């Protein structure tokens, strides 16, 4: 936190940067920016600035550089990794005003959008052109494209379609010195640059520059969708179904699994959908041309039945499909209602290690007296263990962090990685030495050394070494 005299100077400087935008400095205003989706770790910024356009954003960056205060960029703040929080104080730049959809080219299969556009806003606009943008994190109604690119976001349907990095054709970024650069564009190449710098930008979690706009690849909207829901008595049968679906020529777009603890949580709530409480619930979906997907329905159902499910339900009707998805969709909200705090881990593992890692989650959580439920992208091996706890109770947060550490150690040992779609933020930065040794850490840290060598942009994120020293 800046001394009060400095804060007045900071506020005055920021107000000079934004004539149409806003500067927030009162405690009540700043409180809304203390946390991201994690909720339980609070970092109070010295100021929040909401630039109205790119020119104002450029002035903010240039001023922050002169003032020597940390800068953190923030979209909707739905990150689950402690990304868009002022971990070292300073200024949060809220990019919500940059929300224009500048162009949609259905013939060229691209669109140009500003960083504050929300995923659902984009989907509504693309729908009119019969195209869609596939990444679909569950925060879609509010999360911004800027945040999605910053964290290389994924979602349930990424099993078939891939994550954000598969769809970013180009981006415009403002570096700390105020210089504006365009990497790529509608064609998705390098442009005049010799190297493909946009690769470093995607997933960089606000540590290299401020994104202003993107060129995104889109696909023809599928003609028809079939959703399947099946329950399994144990993990062996559920895994058999997952492996069968992954290897099947029907190429499901999503393969989601809820463990019995998560199923029980839903069934013991007002949102119950009638699932057997001791079961694993699997959701899968196929989509494409009607003639093709209709021909695949029975083979997908057979995979689920042959694996051991006795209640395979499926539909191509929108309302019924929504009901099949209901348990999966309400699980996150229920955790928020049932528990003062919860943390979602985001490890990706080889699928053969699923049973071992789930058992580790259960053993560690049970021993610590922490409630754990699992709902995750099984097709990708992307685990999301959710730990429900109360950070106000002494020792609970430490227990959860210890479980997280042991889980991540084992994840890396079995060949997995720390994050599949949430990013590292400051939540998992301490685990990075598990993945990167001295040589590769040096390689990683060379990238901020190019664009943000003093770590003034989003300090203490991704790598703990990234501390800003004015």
């Amino acid at each position, binding site marked *: 936190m800046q001394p009060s005299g400095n804060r007045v100077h900071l506020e005055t400087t920021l107000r000079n940067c934004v004539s149409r935008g806003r500067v927030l400095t009162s405690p009540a205003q700043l409180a809304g920016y203390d946390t991201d989706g994690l909720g339980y770790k609070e970092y109070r910024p010295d100021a929040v600035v909401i630039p109205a356009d790119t020119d104002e954003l450029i002035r903010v960056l240039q001023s922050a550089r002169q003032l020597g205060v940390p800068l953190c960029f923030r979209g909707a703040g739905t990150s689950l990794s402690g990304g868009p929080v002022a971990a070292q104080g300073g200024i949060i730049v809220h990019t919500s005003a940059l929300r224009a959809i500048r162009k949609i080219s259905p013939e060229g299969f691209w669109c140009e959008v500003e960083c504050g556009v929300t995923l659902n806003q984009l989907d509504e606009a693309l729908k009119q052109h019969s195209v869609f943008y596939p990444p679909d994190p569950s925060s879609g109604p509010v999360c911004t494209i800027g945040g999605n690119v910053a964290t*290389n976001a994924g979602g349930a349907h990424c099993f078939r379609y891939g994550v954000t990095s598969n769809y970013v054709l180009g981006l415009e970024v403002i570096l700390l010195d105020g210089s504006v650069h365009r990497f*790529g564009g509608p064609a998705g190449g390098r*442009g005049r640059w010799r190297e493909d710098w946009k690769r470093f930008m995607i997933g960089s979690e606000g540590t290299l520059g401020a994104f202003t706009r993107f060129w995104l690849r889109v696909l023809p909207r599928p003609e028809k969708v079939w959703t399947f829901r099946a329950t399994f008595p144990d993990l062996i049968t559920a895994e058999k179904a997952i492996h069968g679906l*992954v290897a099947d020529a029907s190429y499901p777009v999503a393969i989601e699994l809820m463990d019995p603890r998560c199923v029980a949580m839903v069934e013991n709530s007002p949102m119950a959908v009638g699932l057997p409480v001791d079961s694993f619930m699997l959701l899968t979906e196929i989509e494409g041309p009607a003639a093709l997907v209709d021909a695949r329905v029975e083979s997908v159902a057979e995979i689920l039945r042959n694996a051991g499910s006795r209640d395979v339900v499926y539909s191509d009707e929108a309302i019924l499909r929504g009901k099949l998805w209901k348990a999966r969709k309400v699980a996150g909200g229920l955790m928020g209602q049932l528990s003062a705090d919860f943390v979602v881990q985001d490890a990706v593992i*080889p699928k053969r290690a699923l*049973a071992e890692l789930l058992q580790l989650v259960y053993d560690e959580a049970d021993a610590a007296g922490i409630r754990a439920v699992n709902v995750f992208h099984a097709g990708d091996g992307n685990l999301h263990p959710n730990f429900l706890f109360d950070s106000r109770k002494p020792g609970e947060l430490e227990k959860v962090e210890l479980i997280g550490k042991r889980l991540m150690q084992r994840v890396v040992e079995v060949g997995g990685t720390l994050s599949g779609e949430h990013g590292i933020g400051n939540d998992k930065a301490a685990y990075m030495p598990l993945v990167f040794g001295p040589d590769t850490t040096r390689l990683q840290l*060379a*990238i901020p050394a*190019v664009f943000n060598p003093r770590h003034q942009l989003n300090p203490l994120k991704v790598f703990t070494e990234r501390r800003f020293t004015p």
Partner: protein
Amino acid sequence: MITGVCSGVPETDPVSRCFRHFIDPIDGVLCVSADAVADEIATLAHDHNLRFPLILDSSATLSQQVNSSEYAPASSRFGAFCDNILGMNWKMPDGRIVRIGERVVKTTTGYDVFRFLLHSCGRFGYATDYVVRLRPDCRHTVQYSLSGKTSDVCQSIPVLLKGSWMHWFDSIDLLSEGQNCRLRLHVNCPPNESRLFTEYVSSFAGSQHLQMSAEYDRAAPVDGCPDFTFKTTPDRVPSLTTQLAQEQGIRATGLCYSGVVLGYLSKPGQPVSDGSGPEASDCVQPSVGIQTEGQDFERIAERIQTIVRQHANELYSLGGDWHSRYVPPPSPVSPESEWISILQKEAGLL
């Protein structure tokens, strides 16, 4: 109590975490030498009903293919090489070998050094091994050829791409040589589905005044490693492909959805319709760096430079680019030159 299956197979070095060669049929990932050729990879995958669909030249090494183009025909369905290679062992300029990337299909752990280096063509070191993502192999293919007047073929492409069938063809390629062109669609599908594909393509061809022929169980198309690649937007592919073929008298393959045109300095008597590319020994230069191979090499390089000069600005204006194994990229200017210097120094890539 959890009762799922798990077996431990060492896939990485316990100290360096570098990849060892392995295949995981459950995840559909395979680690092979960068010098493995497409046929070797196909053999390894075949036993598990899997395949690596991105092939430019069946006798070229994976490294040669990756360094000749970021896209192959099957990129239409599966994306670029960087979406189908998950990790690699990378030999740094000073000889150290480090692991870059993962063996799982998703990651957002740290900066994406992997995609930056993958197509850097030897400027910062080179790959010694790749971890590739395999896909289910239906053991049945159909290749459709749609021919007609050049204008009809070109006008049919946006119609084809707009439909939701588009994403189920492995490749949708416009083959053009001289004044001739045709559309080539290839699909790997279960035998019981090929009738549906044939009905669709037949109906589409009729509506677009095109003649259709189909070949069953034909290997995936391999046109050879291109002599140059242009990256543009999908809607520019038909005109650019036919323009290059007609004006330059070369063979050009437009990867319609990927927005890519692969250029081949055709040999006389090598028809578009035979689907095979130049011999590997003629086509594939060493994957790392460019080596002069006499007058022939210089002649090809000069010709490509001429073609590039005519099109580069239009490609750049759309955020596109060009690449050739024969012509080095333009020298970077400020600020890129400074960025590269810092990167090399800080990362130990000198």
